[in-house]
């Protein structure tokens, strides 16, 4: 069984000189606090650490998490109905997803791994586009014009050095922006990620590394992935301030990520955040977790569900009622279905996309190949290609 637990209170014996219990969020020293949890599994808040977030912002966070889950469930159904390609659900990781991108501004950059559609929606990626992306349409990959996000690269960890490079570019251009990059527990075994952490530390790049530790790299549990019990221990070895956060606690995610972003903006360089969460669903739709893990393990994690926990907190604060829960759930479902309608309208495969955007101007050999192919299509009497 993976050690996917997090201490209920910050560790008083942390490496870097004692805990800071009772500190307000803005004073959380991420190099000192080892574990961060603000909401426990029953939705009870650690008042010393409770961030000062306005009610409407809390509801916005809640809605983001619900929408993420609705899209998740819908896309899984669509895949089973033959209307969606292989995709990677993120059920159970909604707090990690929404919490990490919450502090980012529109000038900041986000470089996601593939299990990130929740964070992508928050950043401004339309639902229909995410569906196009997962159903195999080139058009799905184009980041929206006003969104400073990278399209994800499927090769694990390969996007992380690039994210650090963007942050180095910010230093080069003397901009005070931040890059946030996420990846999974498996990615931390990749050399590229180690090199990226090192570069970020050497150049004090304004980058926040989010390691979404969901317990499994497909079927490989964390014990077989890493020789350290907590992945957060990797960061200090590179000289990167690091913190382990309860990834199913939206308040802890928001707090840790906000502090990390502020530090980066102040020129203090990178932060490494291990967000401890659990992948409640399949790795992708081509995967069957029953092969490698027990139902009991999954059931135990249901008790730690990030949305349920946040609902209890919001209700206790009087910000959310049961009716609100139903209404917001319906609204989000309708938003997803509207996105599906638009996706169905837009899902026209255009073979021209195959040849597009290889270079700024198409080299002669490719022009020749393209012309030959479209001549061949025309010869076969198939409809004129678009454009």
């Amino acid at each position: 069984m993976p050690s996917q637990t997090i201490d209920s209170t910050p560790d008083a014996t942390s490496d870097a000189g004692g805990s800071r219990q009772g500190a307000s969020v803005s004073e959380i020293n991420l190099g000192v606090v080892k574990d961060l949890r603000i909401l426990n599994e029953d939705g009870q808040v650690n008042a010393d650490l409770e961030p000062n977030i306005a009610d409407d912002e809390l509801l916005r966070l809640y809605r983001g998490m619900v929408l993420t889950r609705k899209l998740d469930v819908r896309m899984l159904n669509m895949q089973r109905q033959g209307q969606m390609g292989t995709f990677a659900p993120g059920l159970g990781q909604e707090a990690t997803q929404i919490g990490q991108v919450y502090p980012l501004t529109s000038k900041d950059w986000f470089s996601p791994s593939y299990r990130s559609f929740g964070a992508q929606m928050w950043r401004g990626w339309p639902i229909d586009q995410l569906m196009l992306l997962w159903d195999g349409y080139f058009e799905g990959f184009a980041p929206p014009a006003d969104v400073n996000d990278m399209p994800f690269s499927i090769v694990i960890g390969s996007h992380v050095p690039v994210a650090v490079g963007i942050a180095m570019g910010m230093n080069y251009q003397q901009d005070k922006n931040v890059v946030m990059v996420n990846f999974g527990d498996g990615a931390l075994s990749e050399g590229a990620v180690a090199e990226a952490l090192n570069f970020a530390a050497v150049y004090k790049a304004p980058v926040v590394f989010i390691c979404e530790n969901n317990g499994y790299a497909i079927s490989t549990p964390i014990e077989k992935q890493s020789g350290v019990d907590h992945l957060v221990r990797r960061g200090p070895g590179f000289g990167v301030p690091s913190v382990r956060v309860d990834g199913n606690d939206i308040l802890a995610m928001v707090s840790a990520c906000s502090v990390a972003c502020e530090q980066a903006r102040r020129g203090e360089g990178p932060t490494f955040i291990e967000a401890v969460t659990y992948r409640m669903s399949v790795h992708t739709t081509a995967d069957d977790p029953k092969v490698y893990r027990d139902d009991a393990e999954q059931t135990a994690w249901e008790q730690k569900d990030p949305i349920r926990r946040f609902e209890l907190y919001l209700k206790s604060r009087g910000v959310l009622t049961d009716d609100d829960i139903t209404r917001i759930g319906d609204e989000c479902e309708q938003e997803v279905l509207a996105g599906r309608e638009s996706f169905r309208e837009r899902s026209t495969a255009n073979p021209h996309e195959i040849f597009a955007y290889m270079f700024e101007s198409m080299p002669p050999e490719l022009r020749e190949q393209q012309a030959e192919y479209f001549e061949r299509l025309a010869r076969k009497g198939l409809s004129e290609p678009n454009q």
Partner: protein
Amino acid sequence: MPQLTMVEALNLALYQSMDADDRVCVMGQDVAINGGVFRVTKGLLDKYGERRVFDTPLAECGIIGTAVGMSVYGVRPVAEIQFSGFAMQAFDQIEQNVARLRNRSRNKYPVSMVIRTPYGGGIRAVEHHSESREAYWAHTPGLKVVIPSGPRNARALLQAAIDDPDPVIFYEPKSVYRAFREDVPDESERMEIGKAQVVRPGDDITMIAYGAMMRPLLEAVDDLVDMHDVNPEVIDLLSIAPMDTESLVESVRKTGRCVIVHEGPKTCGIAAEIIARLNEHAFEHLIAPIRRVTGFDVHFPYFQVEQHYLPDGDSIIEAVNATMAFD
């Protein structure tokens, strides 16, 4: 007009491009204080400072990956990989990001960067310091691959590569680095990437090479003209990808014969690609089978025997004579 070695000409290119554009920066192992192990980046740190000229950790994947990120953010990195054999450590980044990011982002994030790296044998180096793996990069869609053969075209091509809106793998023939000097004009020059150069017109046979192999080829040409009564047309390919198919085809349509020389391994090498293109576009003009003079399908030999691996004047002359004998 100053007479420069290729190292000096490349150094001049970097000065001129950095002068012209503040976005151009130089990064890599030992490029700053040390001026590069071959001194191509000598003096740049003093003139442009640590912001624009910086040493990196010893991590090729990190160098290329972060260079991609910088280019996404509008910087124009010229990243050095100390020896092309070490680029294998960065293969992941070159394939996943350098070559693909423009495409993956549907044109939002073009990668305008140069990967400079010395390649090739003939300098009695240790293992992994003598490879010619240009075919790898040419086989990767989305990359441009450029290989100069002398100081003047090196300067002009490097400046063009830095200006290019797409990523360029810039292979520097290290056996040519200090082998000879050439007039290099003071003012900046650009050569168009994707164009080959006919360096000697002739009628009997088309001889094609690039980079370090231009030297043995031209020596062979002297002998062929003086002693064998052969009048070859010589083409310096310069750009491996994109490839100037048109110039190659035009020449072979005229001569009907062709010999191609490269030092990389024979199988699936650049010569094989050239032969395929000539087959597609000049088949009816071929009088003789096209021959290749290349390295063997072996790892680059240790240097006591490297001369047995590298094509030389003799092997080129033999191939030309055999091709000429065919009618």
